[in-house]
């Protein structure tokens, strides 16, 4: 199996990578939002 074959996912790249991509993106966004929230509150209580 070569890489272009891997990324094409048997002509189903949009569906497969659309799913795995959304999963990765959601996790990154949640972690970033949570970090911002934690930063904001720790600055407020000055710890």
């Amino acid at each position: 199996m070569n890489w272009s074959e891997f990324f094409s996912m048997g002509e189903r790249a949009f569906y497969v990578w659309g799913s795995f991509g959304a999963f990765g993106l959601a996790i990154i966004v949640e972690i970033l939002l949570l970090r911002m929230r934690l930063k904001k509150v720790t600055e407020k209580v000055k710890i």
Partner: protein
Amino acid sequence: MSIFKYASPSTFYPLAGKMAPWFAVIAAILGAAGLYLGLFRAPVDFQQGEVYRIIFIHVPTAWMAMLIYVIMAVYGVMALTFNTRLSSMMIEALAPTGVMFTVLALWTGALWGRPTWGTYWAWDARMTSTLILLFLYIGYMALVNAMDDKKRADKAGALLVIVGSANVPIIYFSVKWWNTLHQGYSVAASGSSMDASMRMPMLLMTFACWAYAIAIALWRVRAIILEREKEAAWVANLHGSASLKTSGVRA
């Protein structure tokens, strides 16, 4: 010492901070293994082709969507019976992650359905009840945010998640109770119709999602604890400001 020792936000705050990184590490390791096996090692499905790999995301996220709501309902029962603030904080900490997993389950289901069934969406029992689950999560968050009186918001929120949890068995058994477009169980306690090479990455991704959700909930509950208890003396005592407090300089 009892388990109730950690039922107070001030004792749970440092404990959550200690535990969260471990769960994050477990999530990363299991997730990496699951993705590797799922994308590189699991064979192509003879009926569905490559698109079946979506289930490695879809099934774990759909399970998490239901599981997190059930856990929120359990905390809801604890919040109402023992009147513990931390239980309500845990419900609040879990809800956004529940929303995330429910959205992902619906999204990946649509992307799987289109090439497999020929449609992104159908109003079948399982899909509709999962959409209702999403509204129940959002409804809880909206309700708790809309009420200024935190004590009342906690009570109302706990009640809502307990009542709303009746939807979870409906989702789970929908494929049995109704003639759905959605397929039935592939994995059950009685055995699995999936080959081990496909089941393994799915289970690894599931446990990765568990560990992830625990880590995120622990970190988020720390934020919630600080947000709600910022006036409390123990918060002022955190991280070395203790000397200020004991000498009476606390502002």
